């Protein structure tokens, strides 16, 4: 089992001879062999603290059990994870951890995904010998989005290390000592950084609570779907959790090529507009609301009879949607295509290397691959000019962003100069007044398809909608129905099917398919061994 030139170490794990790259910790090495040693304070993205002691195992090199998260493998080392010594050690640690723990799982948001709960079940004694009073620690706000329920804190310091090492903001500390120790902030300096939400994810218990998610759902009732954040061009891998088709929470999903174990708070909390009052969910013409079906036929009608057509695309559209728009535009002689971009935001880089892009949209790269590198540049300007000089009579515009004012001032003016305006929009707003047809559009979390992030990585986003209970027809389907009405398509395909067509038509995509992108995506330019991105985000 030699791995290239990596030097290997042979050691004994539960009586079996095994091999791992030299220098690995016992915990990581054991996990490679499917032996799961429990942890609280260990997190693969943080420095090793070794303070919780739940990972103790028996070693032939030490009279006492040793901690597997910090001790490294060595030739001839013999480790037992299930011997009496190891089991007894874990049992005792669990009993200690629970001495002051309130066991308020029924009202705790972490319940169901709590490591303390899991380990208590697997490794703990089934009752406590502690008859004294439990001590009380503070419950308080630590910042605008996070509070601490101190009684639950097991003082693993994951959150403190996160703020020191990953966000580099250092707002958290452990105050006091012994059984009074608990996490806190310096008086007057709240935890308020763009990565703060991650501390709640990595807290192994329900001590750090997200005000955004507090009492919102029991985790076992939610559906989880692997997806990608559309908040910026980084494209963090995420899990979208929904209850009855409504988003309740976003969590980062491990992808060492993109976002490690983290996501930013802009992305994490940036989905409320999906359910805002000004969300557009029904289609309408200039004078009446339309049923969803007739919106499609009206649209098809417009398109088939249109002359001097222009398409205005945005960088929120998936490659699949763009491919369908491309199909339509190529079937209409002399149609022109240009794109608009939302204003640049601020970029942020953290000491760990995690970056938030200034491009607050997910798929500029994809649009440029399909419509050419000038689509948001010169083509956009040309389209603006054409609109200004009234050379466009039918405009089909897309606005998938969260802004209610649409593509922004210069565009909103110009768009009005097209005689017929068909607008796909996520949000309703004044700029839509007088449009011939307004069609509800899917927002990033509602799309099935692929985006290309700023590093050129092709990744799959999945819709949060409950299948069979879609609030309206997504563009992926609607655009295909229009194509069918225009007789340039014979049947409606899934996102994977549309991607297949894209891969046939546009060379840049030819090496890829949905299935080989897996959970973690691939660089567009290169085929690579599939990155295994399983392993959770705790």
């Amino acid at each position: 089992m030699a791995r290239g030139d990596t030097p290997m170490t042979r050691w004994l794990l539960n009586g079996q001879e095994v091999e791992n790259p030299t220098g690995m910790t016992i915990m990581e090495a054991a996990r490679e062999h499917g032996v799961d040693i429990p942890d609280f304070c260990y997190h693969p993205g943080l420095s090793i603290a070794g303070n919780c002691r739940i990972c103790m195992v028996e070693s032939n090199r030490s009279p006492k059990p040793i901690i597997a998260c910090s001790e490294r493998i060595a030739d001839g080392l013999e480790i037992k994870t299930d011997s009496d010594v190891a089991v007894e050690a874990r049992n005792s640690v669990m009993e200690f951890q629970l001495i002051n723990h309130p066991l308020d799982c029924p009202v705790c948001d972490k319940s169901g995904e709590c490591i303390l709960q899991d380990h208590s079940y697997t490794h703990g004694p089934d009752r406590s010998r502690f008859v004294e009073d439990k001590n009380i620690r503070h419950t308080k706000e630590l910042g605008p989005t996070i509070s601490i329920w101190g009684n639950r804190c097991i003082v693993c310091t994951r959150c403190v290390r996160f703020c020191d090492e990953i966000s580099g903001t250092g707002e958290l500390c452990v105050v006091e000592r012994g059984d009074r120790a608990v996490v806190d902030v310096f008086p007057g300096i709240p935890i308020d950084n763009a990565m703060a939400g991650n501390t709640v994810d990595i807290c192994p218990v329900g001590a750090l609570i997200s005000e955004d998610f507090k009492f919102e759902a029991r985790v076992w009732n939610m559906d989880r779907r692997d997806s990608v954040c559309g908040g910026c061009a980084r494209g963090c891998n995420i899990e979208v959790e929904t209850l009855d088709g409504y988003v309740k929470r976003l969590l980062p999903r491990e992808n060492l090529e993109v976002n490690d174990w983290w996501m930013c708070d802009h992305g994490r909390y940036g989905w409320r507009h999906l359910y805002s009052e000004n969300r557009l969910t029904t289609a309408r013409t200039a004078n009446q609301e339309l049923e969803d079906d007739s919106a499609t036929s009206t649209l098809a009608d417009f398109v088939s009879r249109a002359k001097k057509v222009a398409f205005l695309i945005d960088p929120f559209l998936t490659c699949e949607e763009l491919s369908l728009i491309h199909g339509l535009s190529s079937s209409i002689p002399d149609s022109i295509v240009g794109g608009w971009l939302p204003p640049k935001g601020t970029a942020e880089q953290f000491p760990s290397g995690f970056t938030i892009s200034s491009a607050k949209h997910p798929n500029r790269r994809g649009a440029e691959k399909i419509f050419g590198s000038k689509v948001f540049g010169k083509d956009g300007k040309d389209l603006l000019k054409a609109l200004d000089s009234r050379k466009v009579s039918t405009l089909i515009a897309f606005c998938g962003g969260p802004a209610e004012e649409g593509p922004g001032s210069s565009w909103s003016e110009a768009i009005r100069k097209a005689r017929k305006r068909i607008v796909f929009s996520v949000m309703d707003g004044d700029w839509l007044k007088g449009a011939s047809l307004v069609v509800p559009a899917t927002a990033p979390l509602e799309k099935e398809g692929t985006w290309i992030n700023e590093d050129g990585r092709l990744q799959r986003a999945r819709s949060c909608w409950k299948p069979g209970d879609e609030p309206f027809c997504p563009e992926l389907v609607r655009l295909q129905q229009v194509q069918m009405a225009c007789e340039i398509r014979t049947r409606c395909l899934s996102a994977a099917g549309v991607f297949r067509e894209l891969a046939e038509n546009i060379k840049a995509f030819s090496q890829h398919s949905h299935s080989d992108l897996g959970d973690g995506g691939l660089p567009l330019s290169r085929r690579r061994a599939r990155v295994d991105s399983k392993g959770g985000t705790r």
Partner: protein
Amino acid sequence: MAQTPSFSREAMKQYKWFLSRYPTRRAALLPTLRLAEQQFGELGVAEMRYVADLMKISPAAVFGVVTFYTHYRRAGTGKFHLQVCSTLSCALRGSEDVVTRISERLGISPGETSECGLFSLSKVECLGSCDTAPMLQCNDDYHEGLTLEDVDQLIEQLRSEASQGVNG
């Protein structure tokens, strides 16, 4: 105490000397805090912030260290800080009775300061004087092998010191 705390030239020299004695800047935090305590009289929010800025470490990290140790003088501590050891040897030799006695005599519970501002009472971890348990530390002095009478006497003595203006 000045509005914005700041080390005197002399203290700054000493701080620099601390830095030269430790491998990392952070390692010099403990003596620097002690120095700050001597300079400023106590360690409150402004003082901890000053030390954090001076040493370029996060205020939270300083806060964590100051609260970890019971030995630093936190803001609002009375003139006499009675720190009763409550760890094993002292506990076995009756430290809980010592605490109760002080509480009764002064009308304060551990963690509180008397209204007159003279006394603060805390229960602390082992002070390294287990052979003379039970014991307490009052400001910089140890009082060992305590009986309840000793406790009463100590309080009387401190009261009279205070009224005569002798520094404790």
